[in-house]
């Protein structure tokens, strides 16, 4: 069905493979992620701006599926992810913009976010295979720089690459990041988009331009649209669990996130909060009894 010489395949062949299995450390590898330049640099353009890099998320052929089914599913997933991103963007949520779509080949090109995941900044440790070579190199650099960066940490001035290991919720920088997380999630939920995989590795901090720091939500591979209070509450519950499993003693952090979420969400918060309490008791899956 797919020839290996198709244009998009050639593009992938000339790109750098970043990781296998975009869904972080999931054992089910469903995609490969590449870093590439989509558009060649023009003659008189010497600057190597990060703007020009794209992330290519390639949902490759699954040999265990019937080709027809595989094609349909892949197409639907690329489409779904692109739609969710556009919907978020319309609502003003910080997400990487779509740069290229080839649904029939299963490739989605996204703006390359040159930042660090919240998980990394909070010291959540390695994310499975992701950025194996890169993160080890960066780790060393970051630890060297940590000493002086810690002294003058100011999120608005943009020293975001300071690791926040060992800091608690009373720290101003941590507090600001948690507020940003809550605000972005609330904006997304107000647009009725459910992320489906809210973890700290799917949130990145970066500087789009100097002097500003944005929190960007990434990986909408599991996202869907829903107006239900239940789905929004479960989305938050997944986030809570993600925090507690990767960052020890993070209850205060989650409280900060929810506080900012409440502020942006407005009157919808009341019902979501009540439902969140229910979900905490029963877990993510709803009981099918009755």
């Amino acid at each position, binding site marked *: 069905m797919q020839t290996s010489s*198709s*244009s*998009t395949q*050639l*593009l992938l062949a*000339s790109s750098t493979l970043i990781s296998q299995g975009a869904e972080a450390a999931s054992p089910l590898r469903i995609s490969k992620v590449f870093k590439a330049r*989509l*558009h*060649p640099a*023009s*003659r*008189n353009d010497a600057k190597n701006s990060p*703007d020009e890099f794209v992330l290519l998320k390639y949902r490759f052929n699954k040999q265990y599926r019937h080709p027809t089914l595989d094609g349909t599913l892949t197409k639907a997933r*690329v*489409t779904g992810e*692109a*739609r969710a*991103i*556009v919907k978020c*963007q*319309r609502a*003003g949520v910080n997400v990487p*913009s*779509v*740069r*290229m*779509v*080839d*649904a*029939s080949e299963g490739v989605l*090109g996204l*703006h390359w976010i040159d930042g660090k995941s919240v998980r990394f900044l909070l010291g959540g440790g390695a994310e499975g295979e992701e950025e194996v070579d890169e993160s080890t190199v960066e780790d060393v650099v970051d630890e060297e720089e940590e000493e002086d960066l810690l002294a003058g940490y100011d999120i608005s001035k943009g020293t975001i690459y300071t690791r926040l290991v060992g800091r608690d919720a009373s720290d101003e920088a941590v507090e600001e990041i948690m507020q940003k997380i809550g605000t972005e999630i609330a904006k997304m939920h107000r647009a009725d988009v459910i992320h489906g995989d809210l973890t700290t590795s799917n949130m990145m901090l970066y500087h*789009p*331009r100097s002097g*500003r720091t944005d929190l960007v939500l990434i990986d909408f591979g599991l996202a869907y649209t829903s107006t239900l209070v239940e789905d929004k509450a479960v989305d938050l519950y997944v986030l809570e669990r993600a925090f507690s499993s990767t960052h020890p003693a993070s209850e205060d952090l989650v409280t900060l996130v929810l506080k900012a979420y409440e502020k942006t969400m407005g009157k919808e918060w009341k019902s979501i909060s009540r439902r969140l309490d229910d979900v905490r008791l029963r877990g993510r899956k709803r009981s099918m009894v009755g």
Partner: protein
Amino acid sequence: METFAYPQFPSDVSSVHIGLFKNVTNAAQLKQRLISAATMPGPEGEQERAAVNFAFIDARLICSLVHLQTAIYQAILAHAQGALRTRTVHSEVLWALSPSTNITDAIRRYGVSDTTESLILVRIGAQGGTSVETQMASIVKGDLSSLESLPDIADWTLIRKYHKITAPDSKKSVTDADLEKSRALVVSLVAAKGVLS
């Protein structure tokens, strides 16, 4: 004029030439020429069509080079896959830019009109067309300019209207951050057009 090479595409569409003309004075004639060239019979018609074989785009509706490149990329991709929705790869660029799925609509809004002052010409073709710039200059009366001025030409009132983007609060002034977000959204809308409806 600038030239971009896309080695991953078939050789007949691997080279993209983009020229931006400002202070264009012959937009109305140009439009007439395009319309008549489309139906001209015989070898004369072939020649005339070859002469105006470009995508003509109103520069006011383009907010950045990436915006234009995204549309071009999706058009070439459709061509390479034999999935063009319009007759040529050039008209496909216009279709990709337009939020509507109506081709006439796309050409009317994004193409050359009688009042166009800033015009972008795009030629998608084989590599090594050294005469493209001369050819562009021979059909458009205007000043060939740097593509870097695209963001300054952009008419945000029109872009917002066509893409149905809610305008930022009129009380507050539009910040760079707002504009950046709008630009990113427009690029997304163009890239994802094929899967949005």
